[in-house]
């Protein structure tokens, strides 16, 4: 079954939490630290990402890249 992973550009993230909201796998959370912009950036946490790209689709900052495959 398809495996996925994402990378989040912590510098671009504005912590809108939309990716967290749409991720079916709860694979994203906000970090505790602040980024230079003063936001707690989203970070990729879980292993069960399916690479469905929903997060990337909604990210207003185009901060997310998605990978898929075995």
């Amino acid at each position, binding site marked *: 079954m398809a495996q996925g992973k994402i990378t989040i550009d912590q510098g671009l993230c504005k912590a809108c939490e939309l990716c967290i909201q749409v991720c079916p796998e709860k694979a994203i959370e906000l970090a505790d630290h*602040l980024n*230079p*912009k*003063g936001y707690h950036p989203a970070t990729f946490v879980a292993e069960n990402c399916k690479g469905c790209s929903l997060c990337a689709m909604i990210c207003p900052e185009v901060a997310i890249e998605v990978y898929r495959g075995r």
Partner: protein
Amino acid sequence: MLQKTLMSGIGGQGILFSGMCLAWGAMLEDFHITYLPAYGAEMRGGVTSCTIAISPDDEIASPVASSPDYLVIMDNQSMLRLQNTGASGSEMFINTNMVTDRPVRGDIDVIEIPVNDLARSSVGDRYANMVILGAFVQKTRLIKPMTIIDNMELILGKQKARFKAKNIEAFKVGLDYYNKEMP
């Protein structure tokens, strides 16, 4: 003598209101004053700041502070943006909870205050702006602390009068902190 204070933070930190309190206080003490918010492009959730000019004798010519005598820095973006604007010998009040960097230059006084901690452990995080104002007034003595305490209701205006108590309390937290912790 004319003294200019620049206060800066990110939207929602209530720094504009801190500045307003200072301006009201100074006016009520019969100083000439101007208050100028930075407006426009900054609107988008980013940094907001305001400049308060206070003068005992003269009308104020320019409300802008090319090199302020005092700075109040509530977050790190403001720090990065403003660290070099202060006049040499100026005093910089820093909210250590949000400001990670420190000014490189050595010609200014830095007063560090864990504003959010103080606020959280008392009235609540949203009143951080009054905490730092308390410390600021206590240190600078630009105006008398009582002027703000006595007139908080007037300053808040009808709609917000109900927040009088908490604002005063937070303001005092700042005062006391400065008295206790600072040399």
